[in-house]
């Protein structure tokens, strides 16, 4: 039984790591209805920038600040160069633009900062905590706490600030929002900037876990089922979706892996996501679009 509990908890904590990446997608989708394919590249770019600063002897917090500034600058550039010219174009056009953007960000990041693998030490102790017979990773607990703080902060931002309320208005009806004087461009820059901040947090935690390297872009592979299950428009959904994906992947790998030839976790969460699509297309917490016909 303790093995089951340990696997389950390990899976939940791994799922929180996926949620961190999924939150970045949710932010941009909420504000613009665009599935930002470049989110993984932003995670790589943030992690690589931070670790390059650190390697040059820059203080931890200053390196964080410089990275955040660069991510905000990228956000402004993306809005100016990519999104603004494509306003009122079909969603698929914007999606394709983010696809291209991902290659541009990856390429520039590697040209500017190299392709080497970097160690990233955040100073978080990674020895396991033992409760009874169950071991829990301290690092994963810190990551879960960080995700919790991020969700609370973003919920306050979206629900209690003028900017957040304006963003929700844009998400609900961009034309109506613009007609009452909400500046779409500025808000897009803000939301991409916040997504850049979330990328930085995800990049640091994933980078500390696996090293800062190109493979950081691959963490988004698991963000898609998280979003389908949790809903594309809900930050809470990203967290719950992450927990479901993490736990189900871990349990499936252990208990079904040997029966089905191994590597079940590659596809299990996608099967689960397809199941959700059939039963609840908007995910657990997603907004169902209601349109007047």
């Amino acid at each position, binding site marked *: 039984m303790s093995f089951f509990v340990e696997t389950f908890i390990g899976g939940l904590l791994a799922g929180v790591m996926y949620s961190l990446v999924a939150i970045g997608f949710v932010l941009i989708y909420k504000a613009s209805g665009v599935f930002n394919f470049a989110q993984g590249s932003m995670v790589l770019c943030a992690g690589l920038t931070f670790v390059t600063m650190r390697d040059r002897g820059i203080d931890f917090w200053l390196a964080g600040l410089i990275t955040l500034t660069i991510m905000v600058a990228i956000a402004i550039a993306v809005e100016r160069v990519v999104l603004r010219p494509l306003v009122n174009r079909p969603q698929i056009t914007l999606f394709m633009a983010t696809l291209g953007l991902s290659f541009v960000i990856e390429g520039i990041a590697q040209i500017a900062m190299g392709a080497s693998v970097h160690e990233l030490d955040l100073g978080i102790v990674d020895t396991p905590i033992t409760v009874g017979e169950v071991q829990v990773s301290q690092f994963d607990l810190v990551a879960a706490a960080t995700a919790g703080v991020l969700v609370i902060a973003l919920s306050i931002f979206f629900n209690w600030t003028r900017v957040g309320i304006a963003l929700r208005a844009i998400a609900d009806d961009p034309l109506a929002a613009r007609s009452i004087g909400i500046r779409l461009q500025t808000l897009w820059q803000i939301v991409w900037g916040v997504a850049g901040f979330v990328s930085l947090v995800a990049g640091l935690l994933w980078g500390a876990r696996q090293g800062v390297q190109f493979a950081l872009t691959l963490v988004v592979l698991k963000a898609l089922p998280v979003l389908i299950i949790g809903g594309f428009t809900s930050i809470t959904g990203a967290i719950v979706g992450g927990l479901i994906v993490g736990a189900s992947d871990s*349990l499936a790998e252990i208990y079904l892996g040997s029966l089905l030839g191994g590597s079940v976790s590659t596809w299990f969460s996608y099967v689960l996501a397809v199941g959700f699509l059939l039963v609840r297309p908007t995910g657990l917490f997603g907004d169902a679009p209601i349109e007047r016909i």
Partner: protein
Amino acid sequence: MSIRKQKRITSRAIGLAALVLSLAVGATASAEDAKTQYFPLATFRVGAYASSGIPVWAGEIDYFRYINEVEGGINGIKLVWDECETNWEVEKGIECYERVKAGKNGSPVPIFLPHGDPISKALTEKSVADKIPLVTIAYGRTEAIDGRVFPYSFPVVFSFWSEASSAVNFIAEKVGGKDKLKGLKIATVYHDSPYGKETQVPLAHLAKTYGFEDIQIPVPHPGNEQSAQWAKIRQLKPDWVFLRGWGVMTPVAIKTAAKVGFPVDHIIGGIWSGSEEDVRPAGAVGKGYLAITPFPAGANFEIHQKLKKHILDKGLSDLKDPKSFGSVYYNSGVDEAIVAVEAIRTAQAHFGVRPINGEEAQWGLEHLDLSEKRLAEIGATGLQQPLKLSAKDHEGGGAGKVLQWDGEKWNVVSNGWVKSDRELLLPLIYERAAAYARERGITPRDATN
């Protein structure tokens, strides 16, 4: 048909024939005039695996430059090379091969270095048709050791089967002999891909022979989340873990092992889990981690002193990060270049001093004899193991050294080269090669020629 029309057709036919003949003569003259030996390099300087590849090409190119600068080429035939980017993707690798296989400026391709296990497997049959040897050091199809069935595939030095066997023999060395392997549990945590699965057959055979328990645990690509796999390790309590990763899988495995309290000095990484790039991202918990490799790290080999003096210090190196000089990957590039150059040298001794084509290079490879003496002349004693290839044996070496990470660098901890049980495994390899031949309708060559 009128006589005039007939004359016109005849004169056009003669003209066409003359044109074809002149082109053919021109091409022959061009090939004969070529004074350089061309080496196309399939590289991946961008993408997910770039960090692994960049030091490899540096080692390879530095050695080629050394041959040109110091020795004036191979017996006076200078080496030229260019790169084509594969991104470590099969389709790009094949496209690259097709683009370069005809050679360059009349200089033929003697050897193609695919630099990627899936790419090498995809090119197996094309290389036979084109008569261009594929040299795949420490990767590629293991049964290609049997050159009677795979005349143009050369998994030289250290196949995956030898890797697995040497790792088991190192464990035997640590526990006090092969008889002490009985009852041990050895878990292989592997990248769930054809590469990762390649050692399942030899390990099952070795487990049966020596009486240890063989546990196989797959990790899905890319391997950035392994909590379930290591929870299983904690449950099964193996004595040793053999880690066969690639890319991000290795540091994540080391870190996750530490999380579940598995001792890192009882994890033996495979060839592609045993570089600085694999262990550095794991940070402090990587201290004590072991890895088996045919490319021992270090910059104190004689050849490195020569490379430093003639290439690095003169600013001719391809290496961007000087810290990588003597790293596992850099040394793998040097090893690969040594094998290629010596194969050309062997072929030249037989066919004459001139640029060598693929068919001749195949002969050169099958007669390659890198003895201790020759390795000492090159300055590669300790870096490269002695190697003797034949039509029946495209591997030749089959031994690795075990390295241990001390937090800063690798140190050799095995008693020299740890040999694999090749005598035990070769019959199985030949059986698999024969099965491949039957399946594809290939008539094996006569190895006595």
